[in-house]
């Protein structure tokens, strides 16, 4: 088994209104930061998981992202995956 570090980035689909993003964009203007054309708020979920290889790690993370971390009706997700070098791993 190897240890993998992953980050799943969940964002609202472009067609879905993001009122929190719009409100934050307005606040940025009031802070004096101008020129912001777009501001959309999503989530980043950091994980560490064990898997026999990268294929298995991806399979687990894809299931997790599609079924729990994101709701495909309104959200998209992106996966970043890195294997943790054995020296940093807690496993033998």
């Amino acid at each position, binding site marked *: 088994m190897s240890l993998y570090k992953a980050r799943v980035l969940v964002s*609202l689909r472009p067609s*879905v*209104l*993001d*009122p*929190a993003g719009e*409100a934050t964009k307005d606040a940025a203007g009031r802070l004096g930061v101008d020129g912001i054309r777009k501001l959309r708020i999503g989530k980043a979920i950091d994980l560490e998981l064990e898997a026999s290889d990268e294929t298995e790690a991806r399979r687990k993370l894809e299931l997790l992202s599609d079924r*729990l*971390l994101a*709701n495909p*009706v*309104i959200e998209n997700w992106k996966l970043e995956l890195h294997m943790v070098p054995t020296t940093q791993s807690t496993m033998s």
Partner: protein
Amino acid sequence: MTIGVVVFPGSNCDRDVHWALEGCLGISTRFLWHETTDLSGLDAVVLPGGFSYGDYLRCGAIARFAPIFKSLVEFVDRGGRVLGICNGFQVLTELGLLPGALTRNRDLSFICENVALRVTSSRSPWLQARSCEEVLNLPIAHGEGRYQCSKDTLLKLQDDDSIALSYTTNPNGSIADIAGITNSSGNVLGLMPHPERACDPQIGGIDGRVILQALIG
């Protein structure tokens, strides 16, 4: 006749539903902890409003993995009636028993007010006692009640006559003014308004009774 009311950690309208069913309508009611799988002896099930699991991740996203849902999906497949109110509606969409999703209100505010609702379809048992276009007045109380779905899903909802209730004045930005929908069989209803809070004339109206009464046919 007995109705089950599912209780999740964070439910806060479970007792209101119990009070409305037993106190106002005289219908026997049983609380169901979300970890139970035993739905025997029940004629219908209500998923009440509240903030199941603190609305962590997304409203209803964690609740839908509760052990009770395997039995509940079988109950629905057998034709049992299930009513999801507010957070209960959110759970039903996350579970896939109803299409679409509930998202943050257009204007960001948590809206707590009485709204006028048009009976858009009286096809399902829930509203067959009312005629189409009739207006019901019910309270809403939600921060994430903006119904969203794809164009194809919306067309299917319209073709199936599954849009049960729509807002006469859209408070939250829901697509097609949708306040409540049924599944295509009609035995599952999800709605953002709270019928259990409109069952006693002393607290502002009894328009919610028709929906709760439909739990027992």
